[in-house]
């Protein structure tokens, strides 16, 4: 590990222990789950048992008759408060409770409000709904042409210009068709020495935050106070205000620590329902999901990716066509953004002259899919880095060497036309090769234990353009408070932001108070997502700190200090106000430059404020008798600019990699005609301490984001990118079989081995 530079004030670059660490390990940290308000009612959701159908009747009488039940509410009842209770960040397609139709099994249909959560649960079992069943569609490729139509008419929210052309469209499940065209891909195929075409599938999985989703709404004067485990308090306020037709300032959203988010708690989830219910019954209403209910609430997109490459005999990729189908489930959530924002990186971090991308967001009758750590990137990398290895092997080229020939280097244009800067693709590749000791001989195992190794590299653009605002308040004793709407969900943003402010103000990080999101107090932030906070909020905090500092300097001069002379802030306040009194308030607001992609070609000269680069190397062992796989070594490397806090960055890398490790080897939401069949942690395996590789290395590649705050950029997702294909590539290396569908289970490896054996027998 390189020694990282610590900035002059000794704050940025220092491995400051998490500010909230002590609170958390001693059980004192506040979570929404623990919150109880006087007069609060508990809500329990009654859910659809069919994947697609018209609601004929909902009989709530037996549930309403249970002692302790306050009220039972259906979708139609909600219309008394909000006539059109549909919400969503990209499309206004999701009703707070089903209206007219249900579109997936597990969709909320009615809700019981009771004094006690167990009474609510008991009563919810007594609700009976009848439906006229409609044809359903579950597969993303079938959804392209299926006669089963999930939404009769498309309802884009109007927030995004590239969705406007979809307004009012009928008889389609395509919620967004994004395309990019660069060069002449057909000509590239026609003149290629080799053409490779493969299809890869990734499965639907769930975020599994340790703290399940929870929201609590309470009437508050003529407004509404919402306590919620959300990654996007500002968006919740805006969306609830829109639904109610209120000004933003009548909706107050408070968010404490989160027990994990990973994209599950983004935009708006339970908040619309509890907000309407609280106004309806004029009491606080809390809805706490169980772990199992989360499977029906938000998931990661299943995806089919067809990738075709033109390759010269020397191993240069000259053309690439990508067709990507995203299974968005019944409601769009942020899926159309995944389709576009991730879609344009589908060809991978490679220098390819001719590129064609078609990326489709599809509605199906599965639980909705949205953002999950990586925002679509891991699904793409799964395909293009498996494809890379398959090409290299076929050409007899070393996989590292093949990548060296093709990677995007400094100053070269990406598929969109944006020139690559501050993107250490080469640095990440070489770091992994070095740590894998790639050029040295490798022990391939013996007997029925076979060993192999594999690598993968990838990149991601930052979602753009987005805004962050920060407010710094200096008190008369010189101490500082930082009001931001960034949500600390375990990634240690409180610590990182305090470090930035402390560096600017010359204070100790530990002495900064970070005020948690409260939209009455903390200013706007787009959301805590996509590894954007360090860069965007980091800049806003820096600017706010500099603004405060400037005012202190001016105050000092006005009080007779020589310009540039040292002062203690507390002396300034004392001198100015005659006692310990007054404040200085610094404000910072940040939005990066950005050029929207051209509609038909998808081209842009400034597609992202920064690139995240990540790569993975693994060594594995396969037991050919059972197909059992052991990952012996997992090496993560990323370009995250200069680390603000090296220790926390390392845990971000290992955490991200292990999350994707679960999606690679274990996790898979299995469906039978739209019915989830393994929706409990007794069947749905997430990685535990016994499952993780014995050796994990996390490497911060020598880099600097020249446009970032103190040279930094985001890192929350970078180590997810390469895990799946690195492992599949290692399996191929070990036993010569290629898996193209996730997850990589022992049985799938075993079956592939058996198929290969019978193939060899025939030959």
């Amino acid at each position: 590990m390189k020694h990282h530079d610590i900035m002059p004030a000794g704050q940025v670059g220092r491995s400051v222990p998490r500010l909230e660490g002590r609170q958390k390990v001693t059980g004192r940290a506040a979570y929404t789950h623990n919150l109880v308000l006087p007069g609060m009612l508990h809500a329990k959701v009654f859910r659809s048992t069919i994947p697609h159908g018209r609601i004929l009747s909902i009989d709530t009488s037996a549930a309403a008759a249970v002692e302790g039940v306050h009220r039972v509410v259906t979708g139609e009842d909600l219309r008394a408060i909000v006539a059109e209770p549909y919400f969503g960040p990209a499309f206004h397609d999701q009703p707070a409770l089903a209206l007219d139709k249900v579109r997936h099994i597990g969709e909320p249909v009615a809700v019981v409000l009771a004094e006690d959560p167990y009474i609510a649960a008991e009563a919810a079992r007594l609700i009976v709904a009848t439906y006229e069943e409609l044809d359903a569609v579950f597969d993303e490729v079938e959804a392209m042409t299926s006669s089963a139509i999930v939404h009769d008419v498309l309802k884009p929210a109007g927030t995004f210009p590239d969705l406007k052309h979809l307004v009012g469209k009928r008889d389609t499940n395509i919620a967004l068709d994004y395309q990019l065209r660069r060069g002449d891909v057909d000509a590239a195929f026609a003149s290629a020495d080799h053409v490779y075409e493969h299809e890869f599938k990734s499965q639907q999985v769930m975020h599994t935050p340790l703290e399940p989703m929870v929201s609590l709404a309470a009437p508050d004067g003529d407004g509404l106070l919402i306590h919620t485990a959300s990654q996007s308090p500002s968006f919740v306020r805006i969306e609830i205000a829109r639904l109610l037709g209120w000004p933003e300032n009548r909706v107050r959203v408070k968010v404490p620590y989160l027990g994990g988010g990973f994209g599950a708690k983004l935009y708006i989830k339970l908040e619309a329902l509890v907000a309407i219910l609280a106004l309806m019954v004029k009491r606080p209403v809390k809805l706490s999901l169980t772990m199992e209910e989360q499977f029906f609430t938000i998931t990661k997109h299943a995806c089919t990716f067809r990738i075709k490459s033109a390759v010269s005999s020397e191993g240069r990729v000259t053309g690439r066509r990508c067709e990507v189908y995203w299974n968005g489930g019944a409601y769009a959530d942020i899926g159309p953004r995944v389709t576009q924002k991730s879609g344009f990186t589908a060809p991978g971090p490679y220098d390819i002259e001719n590129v064609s991308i078609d990326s489709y967001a599809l509605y199906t009758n599965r639980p909705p899919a949205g953002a999950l750590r990586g925002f679509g990137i891991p699904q793409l990398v799964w395909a293009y880095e498996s494809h890379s290895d398959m090409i290299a092997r076929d050409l007899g080229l070393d996989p590292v060497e093949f990548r060296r020939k093709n990677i995007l280097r400094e100053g070269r244009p990406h598929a969109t036309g944006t020139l690559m800067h501050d993107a250490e693709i080469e640095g990440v590749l070489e770091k992994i090769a070095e740590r894998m000791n790639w050029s040295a001989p490798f022990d391939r195992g013996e007997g029925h234990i076979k060993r192999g190794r594999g690598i993968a590299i990838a990149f991601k653009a930052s979602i753009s353009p987005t805004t962050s605002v920060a407010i710094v308040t200096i008190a008369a004793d010189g101490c500082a408070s930082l009001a931001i709407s960034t949500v600390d969900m375990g990634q240690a943003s409180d610590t990182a932001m305090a470090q930035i402010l402390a560096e600017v103000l010359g204070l100790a990080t530990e002495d900064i108070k970070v005020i948690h999101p409260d939209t009455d107090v903390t200013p706007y932030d787009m959301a805590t997502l996509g590894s954007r906070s360090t860069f965007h909020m980091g800049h806003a905090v820096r600017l706010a700190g500099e603004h405060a500092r400037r005012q202190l300097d001016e105050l000092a001069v006005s009080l007779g200090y020589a310009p540039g002379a040292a002062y203690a802030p507390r002396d300034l306040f004392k001198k100015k106000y005659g006692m310990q009194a007054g404040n200085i308030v610094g404000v910072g607001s940040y939005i990066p430059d950005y050029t929207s992609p051209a509609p038909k070609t998808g081209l842009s000269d400034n597609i992202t404020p920064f690139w995240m680069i990540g790569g993975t190397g693994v060594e594995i062992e396969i037991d050919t008798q059972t197909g059992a796989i052991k990952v012996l070594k997992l090496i993560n490397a990323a370009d995250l600019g200069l680390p603000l806090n090296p220790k926390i960055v390392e845990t971000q890398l290992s955490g991200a990699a292990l999350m994707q490790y679960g999606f690679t080897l274990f996790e898979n939401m299995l469906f039978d005609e739209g019915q989830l069949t393994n929706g409990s942690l007794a069947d749905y395996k997430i990685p535990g301490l016994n499952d993780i590789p014995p050796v994990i290395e996390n490497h911060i590649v020598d880099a600097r984001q020249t446009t970032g705050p103190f040279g930094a950029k985001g890192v929350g997702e970078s180590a997810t990118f390469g895990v799946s294909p690195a492992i599949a590539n290692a399996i191929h290396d070990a036993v010569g079989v290629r898996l193209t569908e996730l997850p990589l289970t022992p049985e799938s490896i075993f079956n592939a081995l058996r198929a290969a054996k019978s193939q060899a027998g025939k030959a």
Partner: protein
Amino acid sequence: MYDFQYLRPATVDEASRVLATQPDARPMSGGMSLLPATKQRLSHWSAIVDLGGVAGLDEIRMEHGALVIGARARHVSVLSSSVVRAAIPALAELAEGIGDPLVRNRGTIGGSVANADPAADYPAALLGLGATVVTNHREIAADDLFTGLFETALEAGEIITAVRFPVPKRAAYAKYRHPASRYAVVGAFVAETAEGVRVAVTGAASHVFRVPAFETALSKSLSQDALVGVTPAYGDLNADLFASSEYRAHVIGEMVRRAVQACLHPSTPSRNA
């Protein structure tokens, strides 16, 4: 959880009387399966008869050359018993691999056997070793005890008081775990006894069963080579989200091979695959 009566009798007779007269009453010995099932409303009993109040059923001892384990002996007692380790080390190792520490600290051998979970570990040991189950009424050979999915030959009011294991020459258990539940996808118990080699398999079908084809082959020669080319015909094997029946059939052979390997080389780790 539904309402139910909780009873804690002090003697086997008292427990037996309640269970014989109340058809919807259920005995509990540890409750490691019964409590979760009740909480999840998978089962509903008018009364739960907790055998935890019955004293003296947890002894582990040698008797006429056989290992006798009281029905209330917890898994932790079996795995840490020097008597078990000396007589049938494979049984102690099997107990060590059951569930997690919480389950091992509360769960009992009698509870596990009477519950007859298709993926439980103990039934494989009982059948593989040719054990005898002692109840308050009679003695039942393991071969006659396990009759179906969560079904045994035990009658209403019949309570297991002990399990008697003949001591084998050699024995070993190999288990392929479900990644999430950690239950056996396949568990194979192989024992060389006075009457020949016995092979019992759990996790793979509705209840534990023996594999005569492997037993015949291994009785001729307890070696991995003896297994080559032996492909038993199985009845209905389980197929679930983790493993198809074809894959299970293959894994049975592999677990038997590993158990044989562990019989021959007791130091080889066989518990986890």
